[in-house]
């Protein structure tokens, strides 16, 4: 139970940080695109805005998904497990949690490798190492792992999707 509480506190803290990061990203891409329109009609197109916007979207996709998971706001169907009684439902929920853990474990593992491999490559407009935008994937997958571990070490809750 102590492990569950410790992981829970860590998961809450990380989730709050990600929420504020999502706010910053949302404000950033809104401002960048608005500035792009103004700059283009002012005769000075921003060559980097499209690329930065794309990478901010990648961050929104994966970091936003971790918060959606944490809030149980993922899109899904109501599971059939409840129809077979609490014991079977319990087993199904645990099985799905283990499978989810394995899936994000794989993405974290191979994501770290892919991030290191991409260090030498640079993006076309900003010339930043591609490892920077790609690193969002293993980081998000690791956050997913943390949230799933909280679920695994705690009592079974019915349903995980909305």
């Amino acid at each position, binding site marked *: 139970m102590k492990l569950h509480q410790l992981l829970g506190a860590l998961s809450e803290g990380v989730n709050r940080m990600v*929420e504020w990061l999502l706010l910053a990203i*949302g404000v950033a891409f809104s401002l960048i*695109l*608005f500035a792009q329109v103004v700059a283009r009609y002012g005769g000075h197109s921003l060559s980097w805005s499209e690329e930065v916007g794309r990478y901010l979207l990648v961050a929104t996709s994966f970091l936003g998904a971790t918060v959606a998971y944490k809030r149980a706001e993922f899109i899904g*169907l*109501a599971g059939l497990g409840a129809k077979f009684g609490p014991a079977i439902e319990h087993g199904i929920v645990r099985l799905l949690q283990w499978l989810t853990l394995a899936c994000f474990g*794989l993405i974290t593992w191979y994501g770290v490798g892919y991030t290191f491999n991409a260090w030498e490559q640079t993006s076309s407009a900003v010339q930043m190492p591609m490892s920077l935008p790609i690193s969002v994937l293993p980081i998000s997958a690791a956050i997913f792992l943390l949230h799933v571990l909280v679920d695994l070490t705690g009592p079974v809750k019915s349903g995980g*999707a909305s």
Partner: protein
Amino acid sequence: MIIVLLFGLMFLLLALGLPVALAIGLPAIGLIVTPGVFPDSVTLAALGQTVVQQLFSGVDSFDLLAVPLFMIAGSIMEVGGISRRLIDFCNSLVGWAPGGLAAAAIGASIIIAGISGSAAADTAAIGAVVIPTMIRQGYPPAFAAAVVAAGGAIGIIIPPSIPMILFGFMTNISTSQLFAGGIMVGALLGLSFMAVAIFISWRKGYGERLPFTWKQVGVTGRAALWSMGAPVIVLGGILGGIVTVTEGAALAVFYALLVGTVINKELKWSELPQLIIRSQVTAGGILFIIAMAKVFGWLLAMQQSAQLLNTFVNSLALPPVGLLLLVMLLLLVIGCVMETTAALLLVVPVLALLTPQMAVDPVHFGVLVVVNLAIGMLTPPVGICLFVSCGIAQVSLGRVSRAIAPLVLVSLVDLLIAALWSPLIMWLPTLLYR
């Protein structure tokens, strides 16, 4: 064999309650790294990194950036007082007729659809204002909820539309052309809904009738002028080629912000962070499905699934119209039982391959898919517009489902017209872009 296993596992995991993104991604990732699926010469590390590469490239798109931006615009609009002013203006125009407020709610939904890309946001924005007023005026709560839900569903047909952006992204079809194609069929649905609402209200004596005065039209029109300017600027900019869809979405955010804070003075700056975070989380949930669908699609492509599908469809020996109608029927069923975005992301990559056999323009097909899914938003058991309006009106899903039946029926007639008479959808894209 791999394809059967892939789809079988996906449906099993969905049925067991795993969220869509994971139900798509888990079997695909699992099969990719399973020994024997790919030749032994391909290392496990290479396959694992291919998964990560596909996940990244699945959402590395400038066009998709419009999705969170339109969601932020929709959230701001919900609380920025735009909907109330539009309803007042529409009511001053049609409030004299039986069922006038119901028709006004649908009219306001059509206008608001021109700035927001989300049907749920439109339903909430209009419903929160108009449903309590309709109930006070003697409309049954279930009818009020049904009318607002129907109006809200138009939100994904009249541009901007998040499902159209997703369809365009997945099929490499111009989103601007899809937007142009949605205008006339969306207007047809809106007018049909208005006609049905007025007819039912007249037959059953629902609601109050307001006297028509030009003065009232002028007063409410002036108040709603800024709100009505939004679709003109955003849609005009996109369809006129002045801005891209994504830039138009950014303009929508700033326009909604300007109207909500400076003009209407109903949006507090302190509310903004939570609105943006909420939109970002919702967008993340959808975009994550797209990323997982990219891995799923990659594995399908590796298994030559397009050829197999072609062989299967050819074996049915259906004429093009028959195949089109069969696909529409399939989409209606899927739209009833699945959430719109999930349904779109699951079936479109497969069904879009069939456009040559259906002898239909891809833009025509794309708009038809979105109309199908919009109708799905009005039908139980999974109808997001129904859920939102039921929550506002505080009535059961069963009662609203009965009240909405005539509106769903008329929307099916409109869908059939749009499927069989292509100029309804294709006239405007052809005029503007071809």
